[in-house]
């Protein structure tokens, strides 16, 4: 079962960037190193914190520094968010109230137009504290 375990570990460690869940002013940020389980153009994205959906205008995502942010409102079937293998992607949500030091569940849902069923990932972790302003 060594190879099967290696696959499970590759999936578990290959998507969520360890320790990237952290507080930002008024919200949370995290990064994924790969799209979860499915690649392609996503026509819808949703984030839930502790089961509560973040309103799309309070969610933004981008492929990394230097690339433009897009809000959840701007990701639509007509204007999908392309996400290839190995592409690191940053997420930020605001207007989220999470008590300090608490382990929380952040769920990201992505909807591909090419293959409709929802793809999701959930991260359960205590968010790292907000980085001091530089």
């Amino acid at each position: 079962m060594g190879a099967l375990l290696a696959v499970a570990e590759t999936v578990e460690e290959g998507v969520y960037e360890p320790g990237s869940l952290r507080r930002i002013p008024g919200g949370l940020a995290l990064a994924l190193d790969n799209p979860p389980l499915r690649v392609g153009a996503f026509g819808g994205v949703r984030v839930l914190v502790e089961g509560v959906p973040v309103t799309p205008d309070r969610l933004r995502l981008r492929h990394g520094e230097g690339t433009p942010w897009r809000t959840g409102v701007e990701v639509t079937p007509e204007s999908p968010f392309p996400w290839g293998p190995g592409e690191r992607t940053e997420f930020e949500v605001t207007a989220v109230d999470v008590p300090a030091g608490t382990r929380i569940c952040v769920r990201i849902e992505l909807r591909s137009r090419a293959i409709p069923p929802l793809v999701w990932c959930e991260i359960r972790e205590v968010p790292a504290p907000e980085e001091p302003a530089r």
Partner: protein
Amino acid sequence: MSGSPGAPRPRTPVVLTGLASAAVLDGRGDLELMREMRGAEVECGGVLGQCVRLTGAWRVRLRLGETETGLPETCVGSAAVPGGWRTDHAWGDLRVVETVAAVSGVPGAVRTFEASTVGPTPLDLRVTSSFRPVLAPVLVEGIEPHRFQLEGHADQLRIRQRVFGLSIRSSVAPSYLFLNRGSWLGGRWSGRIDAIGAEFSLPVAPGAPTTLSLLVHGGLVRDLDAAEAAAGAVLADPGAAARAVDADDRAWTASTPSLTFPDAPTLTQGYERARAGLRRLYCAPGDELTGLVAGYPWYAALWGRDLAWMLEAVAWLGDFDWMRRSIDTAVRYQCRADLALVGGEPGEFPMQISPGPVFFYGTSDTTLYFPSRMEEWLDHSGTTEMPDGWAEALDRSVEWGRARADPETGLLRHGGEAEEIAAAIPELARVRYGIDAPDTTIWDSADRRDHAIDIQALWWQALDAAERLGAPSAGDGSGGSIASLRDRVAACVRRAYPWPAEEYLFDTVRDGRGEGPVRPNALRAVSAGLFEGDVARRLVARAAQPDLSTAWGVRTRSSADAGYDPTAYHEGQVWTIATAWLADAALAAGDRELGAATLVRIAELLARDELGPNECFRGDRPEPFDSCFLLGFSVAPFLTVLFRRLWGLRVDARRARLEVRPAFPSGWTNARMERLRVGNGTVDLNWTPTRLEVRWTGPGPLTVDGGTAPVVLTAGAAGAIPLGPVRELS
């Protein structure tokens, strides 16, 4: 080197394969290929070994003094050469001929560069090779690890990601190594790798070409040491790798039937292209696994469902040994206990297998194909005894189905397979993933619960084959025989699925009621023989209506349905396998003109598309979308229909019998076939509307039944066989 390079090609896919290897490229020199996948542009080029994606795009740059260029930018010609791909490059006075080949001896690919100059002065050529390692099995679609362990050895670099690894070797020692954006002195290193590369110094003097060979091979770390000697031999004679692949291909092709349709040359060419495409999918990646990978560029592993579809064609092509070893492989991974984490239930055949072993279950149909494949192997090979383990596997398959069968109707219930896997992952795990796919039929992104029509046809066929093969009755004390269950399923399908408003069949039965939409899957019930005569012909005619059938194939869902989406994989896209279903059902129902025309339609796609008919196309225009460019689903059913339906062949080598009931369209004047394997012999057929000539080379007599009076041919004999009346459409 043979072959004369033509003009540089546009960026179209090239796939080079050995039995455990593949190289994917766009034909311009580098192993890179940007390809639309699931609606986004994705890099699909690189090297695969043992069903593990070893590298991402593997690129080479050329440098002369302070000037530098990418290799593809210098491409002036390209061509397929036996067992490989050649590109010619010109850059100033520099000429480079590159040959790429997938290797048979070790799982990987070798690139050979022969550099020369047409100028009067020597050139100080520097060649830089670089790629990003991937080292993830094909199973984990789209996940590329970032962290690796790197080790420099005297003659190679090794990169490892858990149990997966690769080795990079060169025929010339590198003058410089780099890792990510900096130089690297060698030794051991661990961490993120975005690029690993080396620079080679290649002085080129007039009249004295210089050669550099680069080999990337790997898959499982544990197999790297054993491949050392073979890898050294590949570098010593890289041309031998391509020659070996070519020799194997030629020998295999020569052992398969040749088909000639003088009245439809497109079909003759289509057969040859489909057969060549199927050959590219042959795979023996190690760990005693044998089979055919599902397709390229992103399904390069053994998928049970796809394998089952391909093995039917492999039987017709006469490769009984490969078919048996492939079934043995699937049987070995048939689930023996509840394995919730990989979606397995007792008796279930695997969804996917690759070396490691890495295996996974969770489909509702894969298990149901194998009883028929076992029977076909016996029928074609003429073996009278089941191979070891098959009888038990057959019993387990039937019991797996019984456990899912409705006690009243006998219909097989499906759905929930993928959800069970997600549910098996601990709720409180730090990271969890899932796909909300409630169902896993062949259209596994569509919810077709509870009793999809094609699943019931398959279930009926599985029971039918199991009954003939002597599988035991239910061991649960219910006393239910396989035959009675089979008949109950047939009766229920005939009663519950007819859809008068559409003059078609419901796609599924849910909560006791039939439901649409109109899909091509209903045609499988016609092909299975569950509907015959005028009813079958009406069903075929309905499927041929323009809401389901287009000029480029058959949609997965009627365009008249509210849920139709032309870019949704299983909710409106055109699939080549569905087109083959229409041909199959049309010929089964006696519509020879529609059946042959549909086969010609697939053959035209074979001639047009890069490597074969694409997996799928948009539903609203003939444009590949989210499509593998080479897929077993697209070539194998086409091949099978040519033999089983168009030629009307039924092989029963165990009883030394061959049925021939041709269904060629009116107006055809001739069709020929050579080297059809029947047991230990071969058959040649030559048909005209008034005569069927048969030549038999087997060791004993063969009875040939053309639909009237069977004729017995003795060993080495030829004869004319009387043909029965052709079934006409009413």
